[in-house]
């Protein structure tokens, strides 16, 4: 009852054209009533309930799905021990009669409705080689329920796929082109002027914030994402990032980027609500009927993306790989010792990268192993050949400001050291090993 209400209110918040694609929760619920009634009238209640209580091998109702998602057949597979008659002592008399009664009842049903192809005992789908006999029972209402459910799910999936394909993928690709031209230093031929005249630093800040706020990261609820999104937008406004942009294309691109994210939020709401509706209706189905669709149905539908929830992640992944990576973030190019850009990047034999300055200091202090992995003598053996040229080029393209700053820092430090050398006061040097 409660969930049906939430479903309705959520639906009103979403685009009108999406509403028909919701899971038809109310109709499905009515269908569950039919299932309950059918189980009762066909005398199956015993079979199903004894199964849950009594795990004995002799009488087992197995719940299974056959056919394919377009034409689904939920079956109750009821086992009757083949050597029942030869070893009657193995079974308690009571159980035996129950099985027989149940079977008899089913047979009767089939006779009565001989014309109806969906009723009664279905053919055994695969050859069973053990000594048991099985009866397969298919309930009309079950068929109706699951075909309705799969139809709804397919509809929802179709819409999702369509939205993803037509809207998000093209949107993201377009944005990628736009942002690349305004922000990516590599796309211009005039290298000298590019980083300064472009909005690369602003875009880097935007994406840094985007990563920091983790709007869509982790399987979080939609309301969580909404809060994060709001925080992200507020921060962009506070820092006046849009205003400080130099090109109009940049501003347009930022607008589209924000729009893309808000529309993703709406999509996420649609998607998760539908997912929840399916889970809830299956639970309801199980509770009322005593069957185990919550666990069995998703297994049967395994190939279906609906339960995998991969659709949303695919879109986020797309944003993260296509857009956010356009501009490298400083954090990924910092020296793990001084925490500023690893300028002149030296790659040690163990492949860890540090700035040349920190390695010289380490060498002077006779700390010759890699600071990260302690690879022996990695620092000691490093020389000019360890300079990573391609990394250096990349840094020059993307981090000209940071490199400039780092150079200044290094010069200042050098000056202090020279001063110390002249005055004869030394702060470094190997002092005796003291604890504390």
């Amino acid at each position, binding site marked *: 009852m409660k969930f049906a209400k939430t479903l309705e209110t959520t639906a009103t918040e979403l685009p009108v054209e999406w509403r028909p694609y919701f899971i038809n929760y109310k109709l499905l619920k009515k269908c569950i009533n039919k299932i309950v009634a059918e189980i009762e009238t066909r005398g199956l209640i015993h079979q199903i309930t004894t199964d849950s209580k009594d795990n004995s091998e002799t009488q087992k109702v197995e719940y299974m799905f056959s056919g394919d998602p377009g034409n689904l057949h939920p079956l109750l597979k009821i086992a009757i021990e083949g050597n029942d008659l030869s070893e009657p002592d193995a079974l308690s008399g009571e159980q035996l009669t129950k099985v027989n009664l149940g079977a008899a009842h089913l047979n009767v049903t089939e006779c009565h409705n001989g014309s109806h192809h969906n009723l009664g005992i279905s053919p055994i789908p695969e050859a069973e080689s053990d000594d048991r006999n099985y009866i397969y029972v298919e309930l009309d209402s079950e068929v109706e329920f699951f075909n309705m459910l799969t139809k709804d799910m397919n509809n929802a999936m179709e819409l999702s796929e369509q939205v993803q394909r037509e809207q998000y993928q093209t949107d993201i690709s377009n944005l990628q082109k736009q942002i690349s031209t305004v922000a990516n230093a590599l796309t211009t031929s005039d290298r000298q002027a590019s980083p300064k005249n472009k909005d690369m630093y602003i875009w880097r800040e935007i994406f840094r914030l985007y990563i920091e706020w983790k709007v869509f990261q982790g399987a979080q609820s939609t309301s969580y994402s909404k809060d994060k999104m709001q925080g992200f937008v507020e921060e962009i406004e506070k820092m006046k990032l849009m205003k400080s942009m130099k090109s109009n294309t940049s501003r347009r691109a930022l607008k589209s980027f924000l729009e893309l994210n808000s529309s993703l939020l709406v999509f996420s709401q649609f998607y998760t609500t539908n997912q929840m509706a399916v889970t809830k209706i299956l639970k309801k189905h199980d509770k009322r009927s005593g069957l185990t669709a919550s666990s069995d149905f998703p297994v049967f539908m395994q190939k279906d993306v609906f339960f995998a929830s991969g659709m949303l992640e695919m879109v986020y992944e797309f944003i993260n790989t296509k857009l956010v990576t356009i501009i490298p973030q400083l954090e990924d190019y910092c020296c793990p*010792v*001084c*925490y500023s850009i690893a300028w002149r990047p030296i790659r040690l034999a163990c492949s860890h990268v540090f700035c040349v300055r920190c390695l010289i*200091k*380490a060498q002077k202090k006779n700390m010759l192993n890699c600071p990260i992995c302690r690879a022996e003598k990695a620092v000691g053996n490093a020389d000019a050949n360890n300079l990573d040229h391609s990394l250096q080029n990349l840094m020059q393209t993307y981090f000209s400001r940071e490199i400039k700053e780092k150079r200044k820092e290094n010069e200042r430090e050098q000056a202090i050291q020279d001063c110390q050398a002249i005055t004869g006061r030394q*702060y*470094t040097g190997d002092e005796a090993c003291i*604890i*504390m």
Partner: protein
Amino acid sequence: MSLPKRIIKETERLIAEPAPGISATPHEDNLRYFDVIIAGPGQSPFEGGVFKLELFLPEDYPMAPPKVRFLTKIYHPNIDKLGRICLDILKDKWSPALQIRTVLLSVQALLSAPNPDDPLANDVAQHWKEDEKDAINTARDWTRLYAQN
């Protein structure tokens, strides 16, 4: 004397995302000096205790390790009467890629795993080796006496 970028960044991160059971706050007048609090780890004789430490970043940090000392009295084979700690990464195993956070996590781990074979406080280590149960009881008593208020 300006503070190196590394120390500023480390401090920011320490305050923004503190490690569980550990807090480190720099002094306002000396940003290289930190007041540290480590909660005694669960399932150790120090459980329930709150231990105060001081941490100082020397001039050539991170090329030299931070200096760390317990201010709260503690009965531990690798910590002496003056609060000095016997921990390899604070001495010869220091690496400039280590940080305040990793150092304090190591100290916290040392509380969970006392190592009487590499002692600093000889008498305590002796006690630990001869009668571990009794030593742990003393450590519990000390925790109650000195680290709870």
